[in-house]
């Protein structure tokens, strides 16, 4: 008897079909974003510098990182709609539901494509294009990958932690909190968690909303953010006023607060809360696939 829940052979078949369909629907957009963004940035910035300062100067690391983040966000927002948005349309949705693969296989394939295959492909093409531009024109400086590695190295050398508290600036040398934060920030899971936190809402939005998928997803994220902020703001306001009042009278107390309080585990709190939200999103996607009807 065939396994109706998960079968590797069938999954391989489904995944390769999903990949081809995604490539047909989104391949061109992916290449456009991953190649056109860095090339256009290079041309526009170099031309701007040439006209304004009369020097041949490519875009620096700051601009390139900014455009890279914008490009990745564009990719994450547009990909699920192009690849899976049609599931809410009668013809394709009916065909997809009755395609002989299990719900679990369809779910896993969808996640792999949205959260791993497409973003990694986009990332590699983007940094590859950036590396080629930097290799051809040295005025751009180091490429994004080399720059990122440098940034991580510099972070581990950080020995002091500076805060702006009202008009005063507080610098804690050899701060345990800084070291803790760096150690925790070096944990790759925080990035995976954050990345899933960006991609999953757009995937859910693509298969949940019938039209205006990206806009409605943005509005939902905004509404969710507003609601959680409203819930958290009384606590945050208390903390903030406590820190500011203590900073004026007893700066050492602030150091204590940061070294022993919740701030020491800020990254952990962030990871846990993101994981909970991501699990809820995964559950939402699963139930949408399970109960999708036409």
């Amino acid at each position, binding site marked *: *008897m*065939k396994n109706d829940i998960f079968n590797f052979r069938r999954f391989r*078949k489904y995944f390769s079909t999903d990949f081809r369909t995604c490539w047909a*629907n989104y391949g061109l957009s992916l290449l456009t974003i991953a190649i056109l963004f860095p090339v256009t940035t290079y041309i526009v910035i170099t031309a701007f510098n040439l006209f304004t300062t009369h020097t041949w100067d490519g875009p620096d690391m700051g601009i390139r990182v900014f455009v890279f983040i914008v490009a990745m966000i564009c990719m994450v927002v547009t990909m699920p709609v192009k690849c899976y948005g049609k599931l809410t349309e009668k013809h394709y949705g009916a065909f997809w539901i*009755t395609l*002989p*693969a299990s719900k679990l296989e369809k779910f896993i394939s969808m996640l792999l494509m949205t959260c791993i295959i497409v973003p990694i492909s986009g990332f590699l093409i983007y940094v590859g294009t950036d590396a080629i531009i930097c290799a051809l024109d040295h005025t751009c400086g180091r490429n994004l990958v080399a720059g990122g590695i440098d940034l991580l190295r510099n972070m581990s050398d950080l020995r002091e932690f500076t805060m702006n508290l009202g008009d005063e600036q507080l610098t804690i040398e050899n701060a345990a909190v800084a070291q803790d934060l760096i150690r925790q920030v070096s944990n790759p899971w925080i990035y995976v968690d954050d990345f899933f936190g960006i991609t999953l809402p757009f995937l859910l939005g693509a298969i949940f909303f019938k039209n205006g998928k990206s806009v409605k997803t943005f509005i939902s994220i905004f509404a969710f953010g507003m609601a959680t902020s409203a819930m958290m703001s009384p606590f945050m306001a208390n903390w903030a006023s406590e820190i500011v009042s203590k900073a004026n009278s007893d700066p050492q107390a602030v150091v204590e607060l940061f070294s022993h309080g919740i701030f020491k585990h800020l990254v952990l709190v962030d990871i846990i809360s993101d994981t909970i939200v991501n699990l809820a999103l995964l559950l939402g996607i699963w139930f949408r696939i399970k109960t999708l*009807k036409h």
Partner: protein
Amino acid sequence: MIQIKELGFTYGETGGLGSISLSKEKKHMLPAEKYVLRNITMDLEEGRIYGLLGENGVGKTTMLTLLCGLKKPQLGSINIDGHDPYKREPSFLSDQYYLSDEVAPMNMKAIDYARNYGKFWERFDIEKFTEIMQVLETDPEQKMTKMSFGQLKKTYISFALACSTKYLFMDEPTNGLDIPSKAQFRKAVTKYTREDSVILISTHQVRDLENIIDPIIILDRQDILLNATVEEIAEKLYFDYSNEKADDALYSEMIPGGSIKVCLNQSGEESKVNLEALFNTVHQNKELIKGIFNK
């Protein structure tokens, strides 16, 4: 074999989603008129091409989508060879195909579409697909985004037939087809389907499917008015194509070159069943027809 027992479905109570299964208590609280389909019981046997006829909004598409698992029955049950269609098990899905009335292009060539998706149906035959495409005079190398509505429809019909599934559900397959294509469609359906298959075709265009559908199911709101083979219909009803006046006619209509009258077949004489006249007769004599055929 498809067994449908006391099937009921409503859109109203679920806000148009048609997706929420009603609780046991609520099912019995709902007024009968809320249901699109209610108390539908019938068996569909192997080796037959069923024609599902009915006015707009009587639930033909709903019935097809329930049978292929796109919707969940809110009352009663559907059993297809031991499977509940709504569970959407791959072992069941690989033996059925649903051809929607709406068509949308995929961003690829028709042949690539067939290669990409055909492998999910064990009996899918790519050569059969290209052969049917040729019969329907459509180029498999053409990009689907550049196809007309009719060409797209023919591509999906070719794909559906090439899957060679035991259960084939087609919703208004001849909509959008030109006159020669309708004849080619009839030819393809009879030539390229399995002998043990159960094919259910819903249509408004009864003439398009004349000579291929047998038995005929005429659906009314929440009811089945007729579920009979052409032989049974010809046994009980007489289709008179002469110009003679018949006072006992259940239905009569002027047609080019004469008239058609439908009467009760009291002499046992055989006549050619005219689907359009049959449909109108059934609709004008609902209770009488139900009484005759349910005996």
